[in-house]
């Protein structure tokens, strides 16, 4: 019965023209993952200026730490790069184009993701949402399972795939969201304090993925942990509403090429 329904809907979806969420983008990182020039933004449209005149560049494949005290504009900068918050002056390019919504090459992980509580969803389905970036309107995902399985395995979640999302611990959920970004195939990962409130095990799994496996993606991570900084290739310090230091990131331009 259910297989009959599935084959009928498969046929229906095959007949439907699929409108992509966004036109296909060209792939490949053209030297710089992020290029910002005198960027200023507010956290809220009527709020105070979060940072102004920020100019910096992040080469492809570079692991960048974004440090600074609370309220220095780290989160707003990441949201601007993700295309969620508009900048009111300056220019910025992420993965070769100005940030806008509907770009599958950029993944963003909020400090506190606003997920609907007690939503009936299994972990596998959450991770599968990353594949939507490669589908369009009306299309149901009947494939992409290998990528989902691999991402779950990488994040040490293979055994939890069928668990309801609201029964996961904070660390498991965070790893699930990173697995979703892996499935999305993002080239630029924007992470807002991903280690806040994580246990050691979750932290090590995420660390291994971000720092030790030679993946060809760029990381921009807001962090408060000074012990961490040694592992990053570049450190951007935000203080008093502007970017202060911009340590060089040498020889990482095409380190995974």
């Amino acid at each position, binding site marked *: 019965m259910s297989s009959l329904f599935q084959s009928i*809907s498969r046929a229906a979806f095959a007949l*439907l023209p699929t409108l992509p*969420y*966004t036109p296909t983008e060209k792939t490949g990182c053209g030297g710089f993952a992020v290029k910002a020039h005198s960027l200023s933004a507010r956290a809220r449209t009527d709020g105070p200026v979060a940072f102004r005149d920020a100019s910096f560049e992040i080469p492809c494949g570079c692991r960048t730490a974004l440090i600074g005290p609370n309220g220095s504009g780290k989160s707003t900068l990441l949201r601007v790069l*993700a*295309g*969620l918050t508009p900048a009111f002056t300056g220019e910025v390019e992420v993965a070769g184009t100005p940030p806008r*919504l*509907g*770009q*599958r090459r*950029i*993944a*963003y992980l*909020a400090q506190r*993701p*606003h*997920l*609907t509580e*007690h*939503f*009936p*969803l*299994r972990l596998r*389905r*959450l991770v599968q*949402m990353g594949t*939507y*970036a490669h*589908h369009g*309107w*009306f*299309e*149901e*995902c009947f494939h992409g399972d290998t990528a989902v399985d691999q991402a779950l395995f990488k994040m040490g979640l293979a055994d939890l795939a069928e668990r*309801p999302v*609201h*029964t996961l611990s904070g660390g498991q959920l965070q790893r699930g969201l990173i697995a*979703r970004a892996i499935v*999305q195939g993002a080239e630029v990962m924007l992470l807002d304090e991903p280690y806040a409130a994580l246990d050691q095990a979750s932290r090590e799994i995420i660390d291994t993925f971000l720092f030790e496996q030679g993946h060809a993606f760029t990381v921009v991570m807001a962090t408060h942990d000074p012990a961490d900084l040694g592992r990053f290739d570049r450190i951007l310090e935000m203080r008093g509403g502007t970017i202060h230091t911009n340590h060089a990131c040498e020889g990482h331009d095409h380190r995974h090429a």
Partner: protein
Amino acid sequence: MLELIREPLGEAFFTRALLAVVLSSLTCACLGAYVVLRRMAFVSTALTHSILPGVIGALLLGISPYAGALVAALLTAAGAAWLASREGTSEDSAVGVMLSVMFAGGIALMQYANSWRDFAGLLFGSVVSVGSSDLIVIGSTTFIVLLGLRLLHKELELASFDEEYASLLGARPALMRVVLLALVALGAVSCVRLVGALLTTALFVIPAATGVLLGRTVPQVMAWGVACALSGGIAGLYLSYYFPAVPSGAGIVLCCAAPYLAARIFAPRR
């Protein structure tokens, strides 16, 4: 016992109402899953209550009551969205304002049409009032709603669970919300004859709330919701057949509450 079940089926009006209950159960329970999961119960109440001035206005103007009801429901949704767009008015209070204003307008119009009794069926539903033209409206609504939910399943699920990720991917969560409100308005309008303007909201909320207690995925929530709505709806119809004093809307809602209560007590904790 079997005779008690079979007897009303001989009546044409009862089979029509039965068909209407089946179609409305599908519509309301499936849509209700999103209404409940997204905590839109209050908005759906406002939409269903605003049907009252729409229908009475349409009767006074001599146009189709369905058209009047749909216009009124869409007006409520648009009005609430406009009121809430100004800072200082929360969406909650905007919906509250629209709900009470529309309902008060309906009561004022009722005085013009000067009979309360004619409108009892409109408020609480009536088994005998479902005609074949109503069945066409209900059937096409069910078709549109189920098709919309099926085609936009992954977008609606994503936008309801993680709005920010939906906008990051370009899946337009704000548009999805509008689509959902429009479908709720359509669904509410289609079952006003059967359940009545005051009680339609229950058909969105109670079955889906049962589904949330029992289902682990959105399709499961919908399936349990449909089961609850179907059993409650059919039982309620029989109730109002054998106790003609009970309006069909009241009967259906009371009978839907039984499976909800059972699920609330016996469903395993998740």
